[in-house]
């Protein structure tokens, strides 16, 4: 999956520079609402229910300041991602018990016919495993800068 293919799941409308939420559930709600404004995903209640249930299986706070809540839902007709940064950091029950500052919410359709969901998740994990990429992502001010970080991280 190339940088441009990865970026095709993102949008300036789904870029949050400074989450308002102060809690884990608040982050999930705020990001689900943004996602539900998209034409392909319009039911924040159903999305949020699925995302909360996924969190009950184990926190998607990977550690090192990053959380990637994700799942598949009947509410989605296309795979979409929301990117968000929290300036203050949020307790997300991360594996290292540190607060999370960088968030990706990934929602895929119930039937992932194009088999894009897990490869996309894998690419995002690959990027955020690098400390230099995390630092740059935390510092981005706009969607254009975010795109440049992704292109740099994925070698294009």
């Amino acid at each position, binding site marked *: 999956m190339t940088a441009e293919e990865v970026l095709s799941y993102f949008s300036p409308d789904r870029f949050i520079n400074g989450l308002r939420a102060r809690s884990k559930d608040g982050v999930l709600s705020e990001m689900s609402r943004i996602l539900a404004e998209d034409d392909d995903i319009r*039911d924040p209640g*159903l999305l949020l229910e*699925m995302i909360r249930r996924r969190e009950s*299986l*184990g926190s998607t706070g990977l550690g090192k300041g990053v959380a*990637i809540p994700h799942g598949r839902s009947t*509410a989605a007709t296309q795979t979409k991602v929301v990117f968000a940064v929290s300036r203050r950091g949020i307790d997300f029950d991360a594996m290292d018990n540190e607060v999370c500052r960088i968030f990706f919410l990934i929602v895929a359709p119930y039937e992932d016919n194009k088999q894009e969901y897990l490869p996309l998740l894998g690419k995002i994990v690959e990027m955020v495993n690098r400390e230099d990429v995390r630092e740059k992502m935390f510092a981005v001010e706009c969607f254009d800068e975010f795109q440049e970080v992704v292109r740099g991280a994925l070698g294009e």
Partner: protein
Amino acid sequence: MSDRVQKLAQLQDLELMIREVQDPASKEQEEALGFSVGGLEQLEKAREKLIKQIPGQDLRVYWRIRRRYERAVVPILNRICLGCFQELPTSRTRAFTDSDPLPTCESCGRVLYWL
């Protein structure tokens, strides 16, 4: 959206998640990426609780469709059923009351969920 259809959509999402947790390959892929995946018992309890909130006749429709298709509840987008990709007749609207039967696709029979 109808609360009845939304409950069936919730059940469908929950059953998908249960299957993913039960599937060793899917679980292994998630764990290889660094995510922890457990809590199957909790999901099954949530499923039982949700089932109790769904009217019996709706559950019968849901399970009848599930015997035939993997997905019983499908979104409608631009008047297209995303289960069979047939266009709905223009006479079909999203409006239905709690006393009406569940809205289903005339072509494939799946429950319709208007986005």
